[in-house]
């Protein structure tokens, strides 16, 4: 079903190839994060290899969003070191951090679209990090980026809707627009925070499969928090379970059963 969404895409050279095959996309070493008196993450370690699709599961309040924000410099760790795409966000100047962020896509539960603008305009905004000035309106973006926006909308299956207001699209379509916007960054790493939590089951699986397919084609790494067990097992290469600010499970998806993950959510879980 998703096979012919591809369109005229240039043959994908994994972007991660630039940094060399050995370099990890993400390395966390003994990372803790504290908000006031509340320590949310307690000294976690994690290595994510380029091209991996990692599902982050765990009950609400476990620290998944906090972890993802640590990865794009939205939060800085209280202790330990974070290395993302070869950079340490804590050591970046504001300018360097912006540069790093252009290489990291972020997909949100709430989409973060401007509802009164068209899908095309929202997608083009994904390229702002590579431009110098503010823009207003489709025609203020260079031809090259407009063509790229059309191509990305086609890849998520929304070519026809490109001139439609985003607030008139369905939830699943809106998340696809947000994914097309993310594609404009040609990111090496994509972080997704509960990207399908606001969608119905059919739209959820279809949006996640699109994300999976794009990551396989373009070779970007994905860390995606999810709370539906079946979805995590369906799309990921590896499942990392967070609970109480610690990783209580980290296994290849092929070797993980639903029971394993359900245990993570159980009232009095293992460990």
């Amino acid at each position: 079903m998703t096979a012919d969404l591809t369109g005229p895409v240039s043959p994908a050279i994994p972007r991660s190839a630039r940094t060399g095959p050995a370099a990890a996309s993400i390395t966390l070493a003994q990372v803790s994060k504290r908000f006031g008196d509340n320590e949310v993450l307690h000294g976690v370690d994690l290595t994510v290899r380029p091209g991996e699709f990692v599902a982050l599961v765990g009950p609400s309040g476990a620290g998944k969003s906090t972890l993802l924000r640590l990865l794009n410099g939205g939060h800085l760790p209280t202790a330990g070191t974070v290395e993302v795409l070869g950079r340490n966000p804590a050591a970046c100047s504001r300018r360097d951090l912006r540069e790093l962020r252009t290489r990291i896509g972020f997909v949100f539960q709430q989409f973060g679209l401007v509802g009164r603008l068209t899908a095309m305009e929202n997608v083009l905004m994904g390229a702002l990090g590579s431009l110098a000035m503010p823009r207003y309106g489709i025609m203020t973006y260079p031809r090259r980026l407009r063509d790229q926006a059309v191509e990305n909308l086609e890849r998520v299956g929304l070519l026809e809707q490109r001139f439609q207001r985003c607030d008139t699209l369905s939830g699943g379509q809106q998340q696809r627009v947000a994914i097309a916007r993310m594609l404009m960054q040609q990111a090496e790493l994509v972080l997704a925070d509960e990207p399908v939590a606001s969608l119905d089951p059919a739209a959820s699986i279809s949006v996640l499969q699109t994300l999976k397919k794009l990551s396989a084609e373009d070779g970007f790494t994905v860390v995606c928090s999810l709370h539906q067990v079946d979805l995590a097992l369906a799309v990921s290469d590896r499942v990392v379970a967070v609970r109480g600010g610690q990783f209580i499970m980290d296994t290849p998806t092929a070797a993980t059963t639903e029971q394993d993950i359900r245990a993570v959510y159980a009232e009095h879980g293992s460990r």
Partner: protein
Amino acid sequence: MLATPTRPDARSAPPGTAPRPPRIPAATWAIPLFYLGVTLFGMWWIDIRPGAIAAGLGDIARLLDRMVPPTTGPVPSLLTLVVETLWIAIAGTGIAAILSVPLSAAAASTYTGPRWVQWLCRALIVVTRAVPSLVFAIIFVRIFGLGPLAGALAVSVHSIGMIGKMMTDVFEEQSPQPREAIAATGATRVQAFFATTMTRALPQVSSFVLYRLDINIRASAVLGLVGAGGIGVALQTAIGSLDYRRAAGIIIVIIVLLMVLELVSFLVQRSLAEHSDTSTASQVFVPGKDAATPGWSTARGARALGVAAAVALFLAALSTLSIPFDRLARAGENAGALLSGFVPPVFTMDIAYGIFESVLMALTATSFGVVIGLIIAVLSTDHLVRARALGGALRAAVVVIRGVPDIIYALVFVAALGLGPFAGFLALAISCSALAAKFFTDALQNIDPAPLRALEAVGAGRLQAFVSGVWPQFVPSFIGNSLFTSDLALRESAVLGIVGAGGIGFLLQESVASVDYQTTAGILIGLVAVVVALEQLARWARRKVI
């Protein structure tokens, strides 16, 4: 008792508890009582007696007699001034709209830059909101010389406060997700602001700016009274030379101009409302010559034309201001002298007296205006009084009376009755009546008529039905709108002294004219403090009631 169940009371008793009569907030009776007290004192201070009003009517009749037949003098020069009035308003509003954007972005609670920048921007918005355009005009005429430049700047500085306040509120109400999403792509804060915050605010901001333009045209019509250009210059000349027939002619020209604009603004607003309906259609653009280029439809053409026309008008308005580049160095010197003359500000008893008189005039006039406005509103609300012809006539009269700037009423009353707060009080009472009548009519139209009909059905009299069926629903908006009216009246009453109608305006103009800038500074500080304090008080009271 019959009306109690229909009263829209948010704090109705939870189910299961014994019904208690709803608690009436203390503010509901304390505020009217406060106004009553101030009004009685104000009537004594300003010397408002039925006899004085009757005698005044005779004087006004004699003045009107000297005004007929009105003449306009040479028409072309008058038309030039009319056009200049419009340019002043357009330039001033445009400048304010542009400058408000960065100011509001920094003043909003979502701003992440240095705290002191945020507080500076907030302070600028509060101060420029509190000081009326005419006061800025007096100061800018001193800096830039006579003419429309001073007028346009005066209009724009006051509007910065008004538009800035509104924009800040709009920015703060927005959900943060889109801005965060764009910031996460590595865009700069400025890029993220324009892409998400500003684009979302645009519909509300543009309709508010149009509304402000409407108000600024009224304001520009009287800036000439202090030499800041526009049609008011001709009025000032005519009155200065005691040529009352010509003054009457010019006043009529101003009223006609404002009526025409009222109509234009009504038509523009209606077409904008219709346009916003069509623009909610899901397809914003039709397909263009290729997939990445939107095509041209009538709607897009109309949008582009509207924007181009607005930009062209603004640029044309700027070009007519004839900025005196040769004298700009002088202006810098003047501004420097003025600002350094401000320190240290002096506060004298005269200043306190003037501000006190302004407040008293405003509050007393509000009380009279609210009572008269209520009567007019009841008479012109169809479902209360079934007299369509009377209602229509009253509503038309309110529109005309509201169209005339307060200071023109004040001019006429000063000419008829002599200098002093009585003239100012009368002018404010007229404008407050019209304003309150408009607010109250709107509120009464929106009241649920069911309780009224029910009471009439059980045989209650007209007055009984009104008191039990309408009044309880109406009280919150009555008090809220009354407070808002007195808020506007206070700003107006601060400038009426310019034409000798009492209050602080006279001393303010005198202090600038006699280069006593320390007093000017004292007055400005006092005025801002009082306006802001009363505004906060009114806001607090409104929250208590609504």
